């Protein structure tokens, strides 16, 4: 248990004297922080307000009356009546000597150079250098705490020989570079990684003068389990750690607090900008949501997403065979002309769940009121498992990230928090350090399961049912041993547990451990809601939430799902959320009377399709006129493209899963000139279209005006950004029948027919790609994400791969028989975290900025729920045929058949052509074959 770096605010005050100044500080404050709060500067390098005291830099030594020698201000607690002197000749001499020692191991020529100020004038350009030999070739020049200390302490010469270590800079891992020649071994990054993140990837290696920072045993950061959260880069006082994308931007001109646009947690960002351009982001201190922590998306993916060279920044129109650049006036006129002509029932607008509230509201007003069309939907209706109604129920539960870290027991189902949602992982580990009991329910290995007290591993795809069973047992205070078979409240008996693949004893232990605790938090990962029994799980969560001290954290992908539900951005959901029409109890995504994404799936054809931040297709959808409004061009032909402003270019608000309405601030000003062909905020485009359609009442001056309109219609929705959490309230009465709708999937119930692994039968478990924003696959634009290769191929247990006789990267053929017959070929990936008999695959909802190849085509056709499949080694789509020719032919056939939405033909064969074709084509591993 570590010492808390910051004292509690309600602690009693102690009074002390620092440099003859009376200072009061809460009990438990260090002398350093007490002096800092009183405006007294004490030099220090290793101390950081978020970290425990370390005492390695020795610069903060002070004289305290009654204490022998010098005491360290960072590790001495302020006490009543203490008399502290921070400056004396002896202290100054000591500090100078210690700082000289630090500088003797740091490229410091510029720090002590007499020509420094002249040099700054003459060498103003950025010096890109592979190795920093002085401040002018360091990426951190001007933003360096060591420079500050040298300035404050006043070093003119270094008495010791410079012992440059000549280490090779480490440039191989994604996202950030490391030059440990600049490292002063203050240990901030190590403490950050261990104490705050709880990951402990970084450590001190070797000892004495050879001491180095890095993962133990010479592993790479990726191998050692680095989450790439960037926290170490943020706390590094020197230029030893630097973000690759922004390292040569120079010191920032300013910083702006904003909200991360990449997931529904809504972590607060501290965005740096240089020359009116977004440079980098770090976590903003915020005790409510992320506590200043970020995941890989927030820490490293912002600059490349908005600045990538393939970003489309000008309106474009199709004219005959040409797709040409147009100005806004022309593009808006062309689009509004089509909108005016189209019959309301022949129009469909698809809205991304990542759009800000203003865009969602003005879009649905434009369609519903301006065009009189019900044709508004979102891929959320497909990618929110169970449909929007389930999520309205979930968001009506007490959702709190803050309570998660304070809980006495945490149940986590189906979540690996290494990359997506790593902030949740941080909160779970914080709870663990406070002594909470952690129970994980996951078929797979995960970074949270390794530290769990109780680890339940149900069969793949049954996490929802297993969690449900656990919650019921907790609620009924009954263990399987005590409960009679078929207990009325659904407490699982031994047989039921066996069907889930759980042992009675571990299950009982987990139940007992959770029951013993007081407050309980339940975290449900996105994959769980795709499995069986999710509706029942939601009902159980609702029952559980009636107990005091229960928090539920339902996680899914999509930034502004809460906002999309509340502002009616889905078919059948009106702002409120209020159900549209009488068919509220039916699945909202299956509304046969109107257009929705589901009806598009069923082959109905809209005349005009308006995609706003949505690219759910790999080929052009079947429509007369397709409009796309996004950051990047979609991978298929469209008739009009309207460039949308990114999170860095437009103000707006996002609603996080707790219901906080948080502000996104523009740091890059797009041109204010109305005629300029620069990206415009989505709400502004809709506003201008409304003006051209003769609806000035749907026209807005700015984002605040849209919020005012939302507030007028929905008084619960704040008119200004309001960071207080709000539980979702229904308009429209009680919810439907929980668990009454059978799962429309394949035979996932067939737990007892579980075939032995290696015979070729597998359970295909789809996971949703975590790295999307609007219509973009982030891995396509952010280089580091691409390097991590998180979303590729069919992931199998190494044992299974051995039985199938396939190596990493070799093709395997997946045969799906239900819900429709389908054969796809994917490269196999070895994944030690996979349980035997399960094949995990990543599905995409967003195809923008991603090269569409055979593998993508194949992925886009896989079912979104766990199904039984047969897997065999090699490309078996055309046995006997020449492999390359077969690949081409089947791919073409698939492409042509899928020209509509690609989901209407009963049997399809799609082949990807993986890099290695391997030796396995003659082998058959289907049942009976071996």
């Amino acid at each position, binding site marked *: 248990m570590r010492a808390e770096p910051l004292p509690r605010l309600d602690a009693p005050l102690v009074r002390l004297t620092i440099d003859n100044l009376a200072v009061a500080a809460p009990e438990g404050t260090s002398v350093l922080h007490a002096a800092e709060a009183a405006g007294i500067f004490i030099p220090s390098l290793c101390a950081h307000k978020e970290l425990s005291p370390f005492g390695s830099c020795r610069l903060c*030594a002070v004289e305290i009356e009654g204490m022998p020698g010098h005491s360290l201000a960072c590790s001495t607690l302020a006490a009543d009546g203490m008399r502290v002197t921070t400056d004396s000749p002896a202290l100054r001499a000591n500090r100078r*000597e*210690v700082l000289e020692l630090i500088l003797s191991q740091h490229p410091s020529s510029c720090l002590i150079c007499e020509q420094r100020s002249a040099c700054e004038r003459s060498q103003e350009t950025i010096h890109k250098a592979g190795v920093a030999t002085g401040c002018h070739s360091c990426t951190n020049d001007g933003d360096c705490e060591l420079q500050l200390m040298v300035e404050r302490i006043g070093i003119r010469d270094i008495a010791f020989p410079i012992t440059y270590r000549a280490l090779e800079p480490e440039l191989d891992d994604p996202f950030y570079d490391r030059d440990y020649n600049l490292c002063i071994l203050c240990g901030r990054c190590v403490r950050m990684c261990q104490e705050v993140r709880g990951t402990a990837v970084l450590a001190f290696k070797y000892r004495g*003068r050879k001491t180095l920072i890095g993962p133990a045993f010479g592993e790479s950061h990726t191998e050692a389990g680095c989450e790439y959260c960037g926290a170490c880069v943020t706390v590094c006082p020197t230029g030893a750690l630097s973000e690759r994308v922004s390292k040569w931007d120079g010191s920032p001109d300013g910083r702006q607090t904003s909200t991360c646009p990449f997931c529904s947690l809504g972590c607060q960002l501290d965005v740096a900008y240089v020359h009116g351009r977004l440079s980098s982001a770090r976590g903003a201190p915020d005790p409510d949501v992320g506590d200043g922590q970020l995941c890989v998306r927030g820490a490293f993916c912002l600059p490349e997403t908005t600045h990538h060279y393939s970003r489309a920044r000008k309106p474009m129109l199709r004219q005959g065979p040409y797709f040409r650049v147009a100005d806004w006036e022309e593009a808006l006129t062309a689009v509004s002309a089509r909108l005016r002509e189209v019959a309301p029932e022949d129009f469909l607008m698809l809205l991304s769940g990542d759009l800000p509230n203003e865009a969602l509201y003005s879009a649905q007003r434009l369609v519903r009121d301006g065009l009189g069309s019900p044709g508004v939907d979102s891929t959320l209706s497909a990618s929110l498992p169970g449909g929007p109604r389930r999520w309205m129920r979930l968001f009506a539960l007490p959702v709190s990230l803050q309570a998660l870290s304070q809980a006495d027991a945490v149940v986590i189902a189906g979540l690996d928090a290494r990359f997506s949602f790593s902030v949740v992982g941080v909160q779970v580990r914080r709870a663990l350090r406070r002594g909470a009991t952690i129970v994980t329910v996951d078929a797979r290995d995960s970074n949270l399961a390794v530290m769990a007290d109780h680890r339940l591993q149900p069969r793949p795809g049954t996490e929802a049912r297993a969690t449900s069973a656990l919650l019921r047992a907790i609620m009924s205070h009954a263990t399987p041993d005590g409960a009679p078979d078929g207990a009325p409240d659904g407490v699982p008996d031994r047989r039921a547990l066996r069907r889930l693949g759980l042992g009675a004893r571990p299950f009982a232990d987990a139940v007992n451990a959770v029951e013993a605790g007081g407050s309980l938090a339940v975290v449900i990962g996105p994959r769980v809601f795709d499995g069986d029994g999710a509706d029942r799980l939601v009902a159980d969560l609702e029952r559980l939430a009636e107990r005091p001290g229960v928090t539920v954290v339902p996680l899914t992908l999509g930034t502004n799902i809460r906002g999309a539900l509340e502002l009616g951005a889905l078919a059948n959901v009106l702002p409120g959320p209020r159900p549209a029409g009488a068919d509220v109890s039916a699945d909202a995504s299956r509304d046969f009377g109107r257009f929705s994404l589901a009806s598009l799936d069923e082959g109905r054809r809209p005349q005009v399709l308006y995609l706003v931040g949505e690219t759910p297709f790999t080929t052009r959808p079947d429509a007369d006129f397709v409009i796309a409004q996004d950051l990047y061009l979609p991978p298929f032909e469209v008739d009009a493209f309207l460039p949308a402003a990114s999170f860095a270019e437009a103000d707006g608000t996002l609603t996080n899963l707790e219901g906080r309405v948080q502000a996104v601030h523009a740091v890059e000003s797009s041109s204010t000139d109305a005629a300029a062909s620069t990206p415009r905020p989505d709400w502004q485009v809709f506003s201008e279209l409304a003006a051209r359609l003769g609806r000035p009442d749907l026209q807005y001056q700015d984002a605040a005006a849209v919020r005012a309109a939302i507030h007028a219609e929905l008084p619960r929705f704040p008119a200004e950004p309001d960071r207080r959490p709000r539980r979702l309230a229904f308009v429209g009465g009680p919810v439907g029948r929980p668990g009454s709708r059978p799962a429309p999937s394949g035979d996932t119930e067939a737990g007892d027919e579980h075939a032995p692994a290696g015979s070729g039968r597998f359970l295909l478990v789809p996971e949703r790609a975590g790295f999307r924003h609007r219509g973009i696959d982030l891995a396509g634009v952010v280089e580091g994400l691409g390097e991590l290769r998180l979303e590729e191929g069919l992931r199998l247990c190494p044992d299974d791969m051995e039985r199938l006789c396939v190596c990493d990267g070799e093709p395997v053929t997946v045969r799906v028989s239900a819900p429709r017959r389908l054969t796809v070929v994917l490269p196999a990936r070895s994944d030690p975290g996979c349980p035997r008999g399960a094949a995990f695959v990543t599905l995409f909802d967003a195809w923008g900025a991603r090269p569409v190849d055979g593998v993508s085509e194949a992925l886009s056709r896989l079912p979104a729920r766990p199904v039984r499949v047969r897997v065999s080694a090699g490309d078996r789509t055309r046995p006997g045929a020449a492999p390359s020719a077969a690949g081409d032919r089947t791919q073409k056939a698939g492409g042509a058949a899928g020209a509509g939405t690609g989901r209407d033909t009963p049997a399809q064969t799609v082949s990807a052509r993986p890099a290695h074709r391997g030796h396995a084509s003659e082998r058959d591993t289907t049942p009976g074959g071996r």
Partner: protein
Amino acid sequence: MMGSGGMVVLDDTTCMVDFARFFLTFTAEESCGKCVPCRVGTAHMVDILDAICKGEADMTDLEKLERLAHTVKENSLCGLGQTAPNPVLSSLRYFRDEFEEHIRERRCRAAVCTELVEFHIIPGNCVGCLRCVAVCPTGAISGPRAEPQSLDASKCIKCRSCVEACRYNAISGDAIVADAADPTAAGAGTTAATGGSDAR
């Protein structure tokens, strides 16, 4: 104070500079590397002592060494760093003349600092037993059996194997005199620095 504080008895064949360096090398190796004075300070102290032993230091280095020793002692985090400079401080206190001799005269009176010493054979003592020829790794010693041997200084790597092997005190180390105009220093070195088995 040296090392653990136990009593260590030394004779005139031990060079106090080298002895201080030995203890400091040990503590510099054992330093965990956490705090700056111990990690960087002891490393610099070892470097300065190395320079003194090689005769490459000047008197400012001695001042620097002393100041650094106090800095490390006063500013280190734990007991290791706080006591690491003790061997240097103690030997500077009682054997300062040996340090100054190393720096000023480039002379090691115990014939331990090999950079400052040249070995030769005392013909009167040598009986020609060829023990030294057998142990010399570079073949620097040669001569007929039962007659005084001769040592080729250009081949000698100053490994001291011959000194250890000789039973007749026939091999001695002379200071390499930096200033050839000072014959007294060389003469004193010859008499004082007779390496040999009489200590044992």
